[in-house]
């Protein structure tokens, strides 16, 4: 911990001794090796999928091409386009309103807009289907009131591609909101003031200055939402929308061909990878840093009258649709028809969920810091590439990751067992793959993208000259991170921590496969009830996931508001 404080005479420029150069070179190589091996370790399940690319499965592919592949492609494509527009439209305007304007209720909207984050996509799908389905209360009411029957009136079908787009957009827009708002808040207000004094209108400043400056953060939020969309199985499966993800499982288990299934997954990841590269390329090597470190309290524009009312409507809509209505439905289920009660076993589920989420979030943050800062220190292309591949896990369905994680760890366990049997005649059992260790590892594989991208977005906004200044003043690499970066990007760090926390809380497929004996979580309980088509009994555990998820979500919003550099100076 004292590295940074150690007083050390500065080496005069240009007089680095040969010995020093050698040591630093060796350290650099060691560091690079560490970075690459960490990234590759996390990328192992992803690479395991790619290993299947060369196993021939021509017969199954012919069948897929002849019958369902076109559907998979078209549905996944439109789903991505739809959710992409959905999260941008829902997320960016409210982010701007909440960072730059003041209107009635704004303090509440600030955090309430994050609430849908706590709602798992498959659960919001269940609730809306329960309400809006042909047999549900809304349509039944319409039929009773008008006397019309099936096919005699128009009502949008919930369980359809547009329905899936709506559901996913409603729970995923907070990623965009969160990152965009953090970016708007962290922008130096001077830039905006200069723009306004030079005669730009407020709209012009927004579109030509604030938005482009926040672009990396918005794109990060968008890509997180889209990757989550690609990995989603529960919602599209329930809605009967055949996407790539449902196709992977049909091919894997139904047709019994793991090679063809892995190839579908590899194709999916290649598309994601290309999108990531495309985005990088489209920036034309431009870098977006704070051009000025001068912060003052943001002069928030007071919105009154019809503009204030409009702002309120715009902010209320996503909260009502993405949170309040589904929660009311869950409450209704939990307390009228559901049979689940809050007993000791149920509280155990809550504790297990919290424990897993907290531990996984901590690990994910440490790993993201190591890789994110490592990439900053060492710009070697292999380092960058391996970190990119490691973060692909977010677009892969959890079950695929779970199996991908099991393969190497079971292998390791088998080797350990063979050793101990040969040496001591003792069987160890599945030391790694039978314990929570593997599950935590899988969470990191799945959610590294969330923490890494958030940390990178935070780091990216710190100008490299600050690193140089720190180093020239005698700080070592770790000192720069600890004394300069960490305080400057507190908001991003907390965001990374809490996003993974909430994600793990909601995570189902990997938890289902990798948890140890007699260990259940809220998500597992909710799933088991819903899979047995007992939606009402799924109400209480689902509600609990949402409630537990709210706490970090509120904390998150509070801390981001406070972490803005300018507000600290004031305090």
């Amino acid at each position, binding site marked *: 911990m004292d590295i940074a404080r150690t007083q050390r005479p500065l080496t005069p420029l240009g007089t680095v001794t040969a010995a020093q150069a050698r040591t630093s070179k060796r350290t650099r190589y060691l560091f690079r090796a560490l970075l690459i091996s960490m990234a590759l370790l996390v990328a192992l399940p992803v690479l395991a999928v790619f290993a299947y690319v060369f196993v021939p499965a021509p017969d199954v592919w012919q*069948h897929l091409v*002849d*019958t*369902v592949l076109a*559907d998979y492609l078209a549905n996944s494509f439109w789903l991505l386009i739809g959710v992409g527009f959905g999260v941008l439209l829902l997320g960016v305007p409210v982010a701007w309103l909440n960072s730059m304007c003041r209107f009635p209720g704004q303090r509440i909207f600030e955090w309430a807009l994050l609430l849908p984050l706590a709602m798992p996509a498959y659960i919001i799908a269940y609730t809306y*289907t329960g309400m809006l*389905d*042909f*047999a549900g*209360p809304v*349509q*039944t009411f319409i*039929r009773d009131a008008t006397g019309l*029957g*099936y096919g005699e009136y128009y009502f949008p079908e919930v*369980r359809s591609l547009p329905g899936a787009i709506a559901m996913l957009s409603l729970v995923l827009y907070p990623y965009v909101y969160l990152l965009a708002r953090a970016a708007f808040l962290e922008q130096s207000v001077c830039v905006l003031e200069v723009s306004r004094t030079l005669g730009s209108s407020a709209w012009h400043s927004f579109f030509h200055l604030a938005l482009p400056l926040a672009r990396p953060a918005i794109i990060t939020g968008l890509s997180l939402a889209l990757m989550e969309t690609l990995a989603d199985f529960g919602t599209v499966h*329930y*809605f*009967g929308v*055949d996407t790539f993800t*449902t196709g992977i*499982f*049909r091919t894997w*288990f*139904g*047709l*019994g061909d793991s090679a063809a299934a892995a190839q579908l997954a590899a194709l999916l990841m290649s598309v994601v990878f290309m999108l990531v590269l495309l985005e990088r390329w489209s920036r034309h090597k431009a870098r977006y840093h704070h051009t000025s470190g001068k912060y003052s309290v943001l002069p928030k524009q007071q919105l009154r009258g019809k503009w204030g009312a409009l702002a309120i409507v715009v902010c209320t809509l996503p909260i009502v649709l993405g949170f309040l209505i589904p929660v009311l439905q869950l409450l209704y289920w939990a307390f009228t*028809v559901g*049979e689940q009660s809050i007993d000791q076993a149920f509280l155990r589920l809550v504790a297990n969920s919290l424990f897993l989420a907290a531990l996984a979030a901590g690990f994910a943050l440490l790993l993201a810091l190591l890789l994110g800062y490592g990439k900053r220190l060492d710009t070697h292309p292999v380092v960058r590439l391996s970190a990119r591949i490691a973060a692909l896990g977010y677009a892969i369905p959890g*079950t695929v990751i*779970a*199996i991908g994680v*099991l*393969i190497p760890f*079971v292998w390791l*366990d*088998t080797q350990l067992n063979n050793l101990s049997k040969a040496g001591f005649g003792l*069987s160890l*059992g*599945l*030391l*790694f793959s*039978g*314990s*929570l*260790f593997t599950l*935590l590892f899988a969470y990191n594989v799945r959610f590294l993208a969330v923490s890494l991208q958030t940390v990178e977005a935070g780091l990216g906004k710190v100008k490299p000259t600050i690193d140089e200044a720190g180093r020239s003043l005698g700080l070592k690499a770790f000192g720069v991170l600890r004394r300069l970066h960490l305080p400057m990007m507190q908001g991003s760090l907390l965001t990374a921590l809490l996003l993974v926390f909430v994600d793990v809380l909601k995570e189902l497929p990997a938890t*289902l*496969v990798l948890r*140890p*004996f*007699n260990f*259940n979580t809220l998500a*597992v309980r909710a799933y*088991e009830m819903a899979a*047995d*088509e*007992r939606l*009402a*009994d799924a109400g209480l555990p689902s509600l609990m996931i949402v409630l537990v998820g709210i706490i970090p979500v509120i904390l998150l919003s509070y801390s981001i508001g406070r972490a803005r550099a300018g507000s600290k100076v004031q305090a």
Partner: protein
Amino acid sequence: MFNKLLTGLLCTALLLPAAATADEVNVYSARKEKLIKPLLDQFTAATGIKVNLLTGKADALLKKLELEGENTPADLLITTDAGRLHRAQQAGVLQPVDSATLMAHIPLNMRDPEHYWFGLTYRARPIMYVKARVSPDELSTYEALTDETWKGRICIRSSSNIYNQSLVASMLASQSAEQTQDWANGLVQNFARPPKGGDRDQIKAAAAGQCDIAIANSYYYAAMLAGSDEAQRASAEKLAIFWPNQGADARGTHINISGAAVTKAAKHKDNAIKLLEYMTQDEAQRWYSDVNGEYPVKVGVAANELLQSWGEFKADTLNLSELGTHNAEALRIMDKAGWR
């Protein structure tokens, strides 16, 4: 301080040994915890053998079992369909069990010919019709559902579901691939809507007027009738069950089983067999029927009164291992038919 705490947690929580050698048995179960745990608790109370339970999706549990190989902690695999048990046997992760009790309790077609797996309960997949709009006289067989008269009147869930895959596999076992393909094409022509939702959703849609016929598993219908949800009960009451393929030389209504098998690498084989045998005892068999609306496999154990009220029916006597054999082909046929 924090470091110490973390290390402590890591040591205790993360590396908990998965399997010990005490008097216990480890179960991988595709049956949901709610529908198996009470029975396991009774078993523990009766025998003193502790049961460790890991529930999950059948396909993933099977894959896990395959990967873990001889080091797997699992002694018993429980699934809710015969197809997966067959797949497990093909994957070489099961072992045959020699138990006079099981042979005596379970009918021939509901267990594996080579004793690798055993049925514990069975469920039927009959036709359910809306009483107000369909007369049972109009119904006869699954095959007859492709008739023009049913155009736009049939609700059934997605072909991704194993119960539909098994239904088509059972047809493949009794007729040629071409006939089955024609049947699937014809059925899809008569769908009232693109398949979506689960079995209960089909029953609800029929009750609400979107279709006149639903094909669904019998225990879902029972659960809707017996459950606490008024709306669901009202929906279910509008429908009645028709047992298809009942003629003298017909093959009978399609059934599937929930079943279990001892794993090849079982470290507690004796306990696993004890648990298997326990689950075919009269009380356990009756418990399934009462709690989950399934039919007992054991001859002489009466089904729950609600199930009895639907009348006796002739079940398909096809050996259920055939469902697994034909599964992949069944899915291809459904893909070609455009059954989503």
